[in-house]
């Protein structure tokens, strides 16, 4: 498969008079291949937007190598810009223009046939409101307009920065369907989000960023599998006795309320056999699969002190410099 976006060792430091130096992106890597719906996941302030801005030539990286559709960016980005549709952070539009006029203006500036404007307005569900002024749009409608502007070029690569921002549940669902259908028609999609459920629902690949660094990447199911602790939830009549029996069988087990959490299980039939042999019949045996949320929280260190309000910069890197990269194996 060919790489559509490659980022290697991207670093970006912001200098400001008030807060001094701030490393927003710190040696970040990203690989998006053709045909993927790639989730770009990270807590607020982790560097997603900055990464996308650097990739699209809006901010100058300190160092790092980037390519978009095979061309080094930002130097030769203009060569492929016609095939890249992007929104970065909620784009602002000129409030006095209608949605239609806004898009027509962009279409003209980019040499896209104006007939395309109606098509994309329809795609994002704004065809009835296209003649109204952008000023009067809701946040969600502006977001839709932004997506429409990114689609105007009929891009091969679509980059969306937090597209779900401001959308209602129905809007989020429509956005998801839109991305799926675009992907089915061959468009590669990179979508950033801090909402995990979203990514898990539509993305096949994911890269997780925390404090400017990549902490995990790969196929969504593999990232999840990499964090599977092989735990099962077990309900039995006598939990305490069951724990002893399971310990004797070299399994970890703790009582958790009414039930048990049993760990280190490769084959769950062992649990029912061990307990059944002693007359303890298993009432429920549920695998505890990690979801992206728990992986994300674990990787970004966001759940270590649930009682203390978490600050945006408290996100952590995993122990040492270990980066889980399921395409390349774990490197420490």
């Amino acid at each position: 498969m060919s790489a559509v976006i490659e980022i290697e060792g991207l670093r970006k430091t912001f200098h400001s008079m008030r807060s001094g130096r701030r490393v927003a992106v710190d040696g970040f890597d990203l690989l998006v291949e053709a045909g993927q719906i790639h989730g770009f996941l990270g807590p607020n302030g982790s560097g997603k937007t900055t990464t996308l801005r650097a990739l699209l030539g809006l901010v100058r990286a300190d160092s790092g190598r980037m390519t978009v559709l095979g061309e080094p960016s930002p130097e030769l980005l203009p060569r492929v810009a016609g095939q890249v549709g992007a929104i970065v952070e909620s784009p602002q539009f000129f409030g006095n223009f209608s949605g239609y006029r806004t898009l027509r203006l962009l279409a003209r500036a980019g040499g896209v046939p104006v007939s395309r404007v109606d098509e994309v307005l329809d795609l994002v569900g704004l065809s009835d409101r296209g003649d109204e002024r952008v000023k009067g749009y809701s946040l969600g409608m502006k977001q839709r307009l932004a997506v429409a502007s990114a689609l105007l070029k009929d891009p091969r690569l679509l980059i969306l920065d937090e597209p779900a921002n401001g959308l209602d549940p129905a809007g989020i669902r429509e956005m998801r369907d839109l991305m799926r259908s675009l992907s089915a028609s061959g468009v590669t999609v990179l979508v950033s989000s801090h909402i995990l459920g979203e990514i898990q629902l539509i993305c096949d690949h994911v890269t997780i960023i925390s404090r400017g660094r990549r902490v995990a990447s790969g196929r969504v199911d593999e990232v999840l599998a990499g964090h599977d602790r092989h735990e099962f939830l077990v309900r039995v009549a006598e939990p305490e006795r069951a724990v002893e029996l399971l310990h004797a069988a070299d399994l970890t087990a703790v009582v958790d309320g009414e039930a048990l959490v049993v760990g280190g299980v490769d084959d769950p039939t062992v649990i029912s056999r061990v307990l059944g042999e002693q007359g303890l019949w298993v009432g429920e045996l549920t695998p505890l699969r990690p979801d992206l949320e728990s992986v994300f929280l674990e990787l970004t260190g966001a759940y270590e002190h649930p009682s203390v309000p978490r600050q945006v910069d408290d996100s952590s890197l995993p122990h040492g410099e270990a980066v889980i990269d399921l395409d390349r194996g774990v490197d420490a």
Partner: protein
Amino acid sequence: MNLVRAELERLSARRFVQLMVVLLVLAFAVTAATTLVGSHKPTVSELNSAREQAADARRSMEVTHQQCLAYQDDSLPSGTNETFPSDCSAIDPIRQDRLPIAADYLSGVFNFADQARPLLYFLIAFLVLFGFLVGASYIGADLNSGGVVNLLLWRPRRMTVLAAKLGTLLGTVLVLALLASAAYLATFWMIGQTAGLPGRLDGDFWRSLGAVHGRGLVLVLLASAVGFAIATLGRHTSAALGALAAYAVVWELGGRLVLEIIDARRPDRLMLSSHIGAWLSGGARFFDPRLCAGSSGTDYCEGFYSLTWPTALAVLLLLTGGLTAAAFAVFRRRDLI
């Protein structure tokens, strides 16, 4: 070309630009209307009496001159205690720039030939302000509203995008200025023809008016580019306004004072306003008594020095070019958030 078309649409849709155009039309209408109301076509008797008054005035000038000459020759009959200049040629009617003419003695009559130049200066002043403000707000608002970022996502060529904006701005301002000044002069010419006096509209008049017009348009374009460049450098419309105000207060007022205190020579040479004046009127003379401080009593020292229009133009071009080049250089590398 597409980019320019798109920019043209954005520029013309800007509220501020529309407001300024309305103001221009309004100021224009008010001036024209008051002129029209305050002027009438002179009657034959008014004309005749004005002609007589002018002839009288010319005659009395001649008489005074003759008296002066006679006074120098001591041939003046005693009893006149009039004072005369030491050099009678100063009041020689033949040597005057202009002599009293009939039009000077017509009140309430608009004279196009006399008034065209000051009217044009007024229009140019307005257009200079217009260009500066529109230039600044056009890029300033776009930088702040994310319009530039949107456009760059489409066309990631910063130099092209900025150049298209500047080009569109200058083109639009030029067309507007041409239309406005044509309509303006035509209206007052009509007033002169129908409700006043056209005055002496010979080749010299049109040539000199045309020159002022051309120089004025150049000034309008330079002001637009400067407003655009400063707002680009400072990322805000207000940067241009602030820079303008700061320059006026710190340099034109404060700097002038300091120069005065330290007894610097030719302080006006260092003021932008002098160069603007010199460019617009084709040259300017300034008085500086310090120039005569060192001269001996024997040679005559006038204390005047002049700024020529080529120098003034060079200064203005250098300033505008420098600011514009800086704006492009900074915009090329800047982080656009």
